[in-house]
């Protein structure tokens, strides 16, 4: 019995090491020089710590023709992700409330249709978005990407919020309506104060999903307007002749840090949105 326990712990430890390996390798290489990585390979301990990689990655690295590091791409990603997360969560909460508690004619049909959007592949929406963004003058701009992620996000957030709100007793809303409270008053005073758990789940998943998205970023933005995911791939192409593994590792680590941070901070909530969120 005792030996099985030890075997279980051994196995789990080995697996843990395998799952951590990529993160560990990137973290260690962000502190090594490219020459050292060339000589000794990617997997190894730093001989001497060189923190210069981070400064280089942040503001000196050449991506396509711009040698300004990933700073501006990180900024694009934040400028895209934060508003899109907040707006899509707000609309999702509003619609989820309207469908589950306020109720209106045809609400279940509306819910069914909207949540179909969760399953549709992005490839089906590329051509229509090209036309819509061009007509709105939002092509190749962070504003266009915000619009895309808000509209796309409403499907997810409505699904999340509606499934949470059907757990709120409808009598609460009915009683308030009899007292003369309107749509928004009930939303602000009754529904939102009950919402923090689901809003945190929604915000975490929207933030992670939008930050990590690549196809829209590379299709609808080019050059210096791209989010950081697209910049990472452009970077790999730019340096393919003479890779700069140390600096690139630092860039990868910086680009991955926001979502990893959110995950570590809100792991419990991340788990709760798992099934619905993974369908993306």
């Amino acid at each position, binding site marked *: 019995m005792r030996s099985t326990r030890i075997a279980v712990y051994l196995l789990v430890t080995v697996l843990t090491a395998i799952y951590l*390996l990529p993160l560990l*390798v990137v973290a260690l290489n962000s502190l090594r020089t490219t020459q050292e990585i060339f000589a000794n390979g990617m997997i190894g301990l730093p001989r001497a710590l060189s923190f210069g990689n981070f400064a280089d990655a942040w503001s000196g690295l050449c991506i396509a023709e711009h040698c300004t590091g990933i700073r501006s791409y990180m900024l694009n990603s934040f400028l895209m992700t934060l508003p899109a997360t907040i707006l899509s969560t707000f609309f999702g909460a509003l619609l989820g409330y309207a469908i589950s508690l306020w109720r209106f004619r045809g609400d279940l049909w509306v819910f069914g249709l909207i949540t179909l959007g969760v399953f549709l592949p992005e490839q089906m929406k590329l051509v229509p978005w090209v036309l819509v963004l061009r007509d709105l003058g939002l092509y190749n701009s962070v504003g266009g990407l915000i619009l895309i992620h808000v509209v796309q996000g409403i499907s997810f957030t409505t699904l999340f919020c509606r499934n949470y709100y059907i757990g709120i007793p409808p009598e609460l809303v009915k009683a308030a309506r009899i007292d003369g409270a309107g749509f*928004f008053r009930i939303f602000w005073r009754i529904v939102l104060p009950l919402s923090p758990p689901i809003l945190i789940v929604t915000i975490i998943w929207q933030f992670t999903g939008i930050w990590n998205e*690549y196809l829209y970023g590379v299709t609808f933005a080019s050059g210096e307007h791209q989010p950081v995911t697209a910049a990472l791939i452009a970077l790999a192409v730019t340096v393919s002749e003479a890779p700069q593994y140390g600096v690139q590792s630092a860039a990868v680590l910086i680009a991955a840090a926001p979502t990893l941070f959110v995950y570590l901070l809100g*792991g419990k909530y991340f788990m709760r949105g798992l*099934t619905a969120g993974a369908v993306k």
Partner: protein
Amino acid sequence: MTGVRRRLDAALPLLAIWVPVLISIVYVVGFTLYTVWISFTPSTLLPDYGWVGLRNYSAILATRNWQIAANNMAIYGFCFLLLTTALGLSLAVLIDQKLRGENVFRTIFLYPLAVSFVVTGVVWGWLLNPGIGIQKLVVGLGWTDFRFDWLVDRDRALYCIVLAGAWQASGFAMALFLAGLRSVDADLMKAAQIDGAGPLRTYRRVILPSIWPIFIAVFVILLQFAIKTFDLAMALTGGGPGIATVLPSIVVYDFMFQRGLLGRGSAAAVLLLLMLLAVLLPYAVFRRWQHVRNARNA
């Protein structure tokens, strides 16, 4: 004044509901129908509303890119499903042994899901690169004949995407399986133990069969995940070497934006959607059946 105010009060909720609802419906239904329509037109760089019937479809299906992509999809889908499920289930069973520090392990196995596919692809690209990655490490340790160069091997590069994909998604499968294992009736397990079944036997004969609906859910989610794979392949292999690892999603992007053939690209996108429906529709029917059966039993 009060009349206007009152009318505004009545109209505002309707606006707040119907504006986003209409935008969403246009997005879900309108965008889909539009892409389907474009797939029947001769559109190239710009939409062109003529009609060519199924010509785009027959053209796409006849291209080498699509044939390789479809073949890759089948292999990748199958291997990814198998490896990810096996890893996820093993992790779940291990964690289910009342481990000390369970939360830490769970957090570690699940963190890849919070990282973007682009990051996963780039990093695994380094690890699998024979010149600097795992092969270099093992050769440096003294096994000078050791070769692990799948990434640059036409016939094996696809399995690199499988490896990276399984690393990223197995934590998710683990979480679903773990939730299932934790919901198994404790009496059932006790009965099996009293009958003298060892732990492995108990899992195989009693516990795993009782959570079969979770297997189906995991399969469906992983498959639709595989069908949508794009970023990971772009970051890891870029479809190469040559076009050895193209996937249907890459063919769509290639035809739409690199060759400027919107009609062909849309036809490929519709084919991608059909693959997805082939997985999701049976699952929807299954869920419906489950629902009806549960309602009858209750």
